[in-house]
């Protein structure tokens, strides 16, 4: 087997967290190589340049690897899960597909046990992460407006907020009428040119990627800077396992290169950034006499406590056109009226409302995230006409509490294109989450009606909603109850680090990527400090 010379740090995965960590380490003069199973996405390859762009959402540009089935994807057995995991495998990782809704976790999210007696506290807190939130905001570029009372004061946003347009103004009216909290979303999408990148032209389908670089996918934010600082990125390099030296420390990886050849890469430290499913998969695939149950898994917690954020969707139909095809699909308004715990609601912890833009023509016919297809036949025209460009969808993002039985393990039969065992996901919705989502649907109906909706339909649980992959190698102080320490170091293997969504102790009730990246930068600074 060809063996590459020993390097300082090997990063596995070039997505949201891997890019951030590689940039930070390279900037400190540390030799970094990143192995990424996917490729660079060519800006000309995005479907937005084609007239039939919307057809690609459910085929080659689907966010579901099991639908896409590209050579760089690996299959995920999700039969035992009520939610399907979504991801993208490329330079930029899942930020190629993400909607770039960019809220931070809130201070109470790091103190769940102390405040509410459930789950666990994080060994780090909001104040520790704040400088990293700011640094990450500057690198990604955030559109927004300060002053949101749902957060401690934030540094100035890089560009003004995404325009609310008719749709946003309509639903904002509903929140105003009810006296509820709402705020223009922080979005990692530029509304002005910034840092050599172009402003958004409001074309709509950011969930299929952004061909002009207005949306902050890490292939166009962190990676150019990381490469300029000396990091090396090897694409179409799929890591099979992490190897151990005789001293019990990680000494590199075995991977398959672009030609399918098996290679070894030696490294002084290894950083896992393969996401909340890819990381436990890799650890469980890295068995040895020292770690028969998977690498760094003496706690038995690798793969356990998978959190997705269960999503429920409520969609109101309005009398007038709302222009919902204009503007970034997932970014408009956030409401955190029901975020903090209030036990009188019948559940612990809380949720956010994320207001999305309208449905595109095909999605309108097929019911979008609510899934209620417009009837065919003589009723079709009227029903479609009443719906198209007249809907507002409110997503309810519930905090998902960690539960050991919600997990990732290895499928006994399924493998990827290289014969590497594929992950299997088991996930059930808890009673607490069910009550939370039901509360959210009822409140979303209220706000939609207050905004003028004449009817509201709901999806109690979105199956194709596994956008956020968290918790499967949790952070903590105690090696018996966590996989990594407060600085992302595996308790069992001190030169093996984890920086992706796996380390999240709890999931909060907001999209996680801003926090995932802040944690990654915090871990990188710990590595730099220890080295010096």
């Amino acid at each position, binding site marked *: 087997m060809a063996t590459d010379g020993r390097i300082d740090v090997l990063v596995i995965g070039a997505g949201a967290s891997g890019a951030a960590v590689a940039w930070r380490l390279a900037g400190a003069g540390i030799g970094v190589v990143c192995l990424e199973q996917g490729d660079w996405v060519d800006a000309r390859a995005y479907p937005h340049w084609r007239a039939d*762009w919307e057809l690609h959402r459910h085929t080659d540009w689907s966010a579901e690897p099991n639908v896409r089935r590209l050579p760089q994807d690996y299959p995920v057995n999700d039969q035992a899960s009520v939610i399907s995991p979504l991801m993208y495998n490329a330079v930029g990782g899942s930020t190629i597909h993400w909607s770039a809704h960019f809220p931070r976790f809130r201070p109470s999210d790091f103190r769940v046990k102390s405040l509410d007696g459930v789950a666990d506290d994080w060994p780090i807190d909001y104040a520790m992460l704040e400088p990293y939130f700011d640094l990450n905001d500057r690198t990604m570029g955030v559109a927004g407006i300060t002053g949101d009372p749902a*957060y401690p004061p934030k540094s100035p946003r890089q560009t003004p907020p995404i325009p609310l347009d008719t749709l946003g103004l309509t639903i904002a009216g509903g929140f105003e009428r009810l006296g509820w909290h709402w705020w223009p979303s922080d979005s990692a999408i530029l509304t002005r040119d910034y840092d050599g990148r172009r402003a958004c032209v409001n074309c709509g389908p950011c969930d299929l990627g952004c061909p002009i670089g207005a949306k902050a996918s890490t292939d166009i934010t962190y990676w150019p800077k990381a490469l300029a600082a000396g990091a090396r990125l090897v694409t179409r390099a799929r890591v099979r396992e992490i190897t151990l030296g005789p001293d019990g420390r990680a000494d590199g990886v075995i991977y398959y290169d672009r030609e399918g050849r098996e290679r070894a890469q030696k490294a002084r430290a290894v950083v896992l950034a393969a996401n909340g499913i890819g990381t436990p998969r890799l650890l469980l695939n890295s068995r040895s006499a020292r770690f028969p149950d998977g690498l760094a898994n003496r706690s038995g917690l690798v793969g356990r406590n998978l959190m997705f954020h269960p999503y429920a969707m409520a969609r109101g139909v309005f009398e007038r056109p709302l222009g919902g095809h204009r503007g970034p699909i997932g970014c408009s308004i956030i409401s*955190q009226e029901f*975020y903090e715990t209030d036990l009188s609601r019948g559940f612990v912890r809380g949720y956010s409302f994320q207001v999305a833009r309208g449905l595109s023509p095909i999605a309108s016919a097929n019911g979008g995230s609510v899934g209620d297809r417009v009837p065919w*036949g003589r009723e079709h025209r009227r029903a479609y006409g009443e719906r198209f460009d007249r809907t507002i969808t409110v997503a309810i993002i519930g905090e998902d509490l960690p539960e050991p039985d919600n997990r990732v393990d290895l499928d006994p039969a399924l493998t990827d294109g290289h014969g590497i065992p594929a992950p299997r996901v088991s996930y059930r919705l808890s009673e607490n989450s069910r009550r939370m989502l039901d509360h959210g649907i009822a409140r979303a109906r209220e706000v939609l009606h207050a905004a003028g909706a004449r009817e509201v339909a709901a999806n109690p649980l979105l199956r194709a909603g596994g956008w956020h992959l968290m918790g499967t190698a949790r952070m903590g102080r105690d090696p018996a109850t966590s996989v990594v320490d407060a600085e992302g170091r595996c308790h069992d293997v001190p030169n093996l680090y984890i920086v992706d969504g796996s380390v999240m102790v709890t999931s909060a009730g907001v999209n996680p990527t801003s926090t995932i990246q802040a944690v990654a930068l915090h871990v990188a600074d710990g590595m730099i400090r220890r080295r010096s």
Partner: protein
Amino acid sequence: MTPERLEAKRDLLISVLDTLIPADEEFPESGALALDHVLAIAGASAEAGSLLARALEAIEAAAAGGEARGFAGSSVTQREELLRRVERSHPAAFEALVRHTYDGFYSHPATIARLGLEPGPVQPRGHRIEPAALPDLARVAARGPIFRRA
């Protein structure tokens, strides 16, 4: 059934598509606009092709068992009734037929134009959003911190 055989049943397919999405005065285009897409899908994916073929065969069989005039010659009410029977007897195949019909119809430039949108790629043109002032956030901000300090 191969795409070629589906192609051979073109006339039946067209009248099925037109029954799924009939034309009306305001919107003269009908489901037949989806024909090329449905045939292309049947050619591109064996799985989709066989589902679509099954749906069409079931429709054909049901039509043969009833009216001598066949599907195309039946009244709209009869055609809809027949399709509803097939929807119940072959749910997966029928679901695929409706999905691909909607996909083809609502991605067709003629439909997009009729919906009031500009057909063609969304890049590089994007969409213009008229500038408007943000609503006053003073009421929300005046609530003071609504997060728990931890």
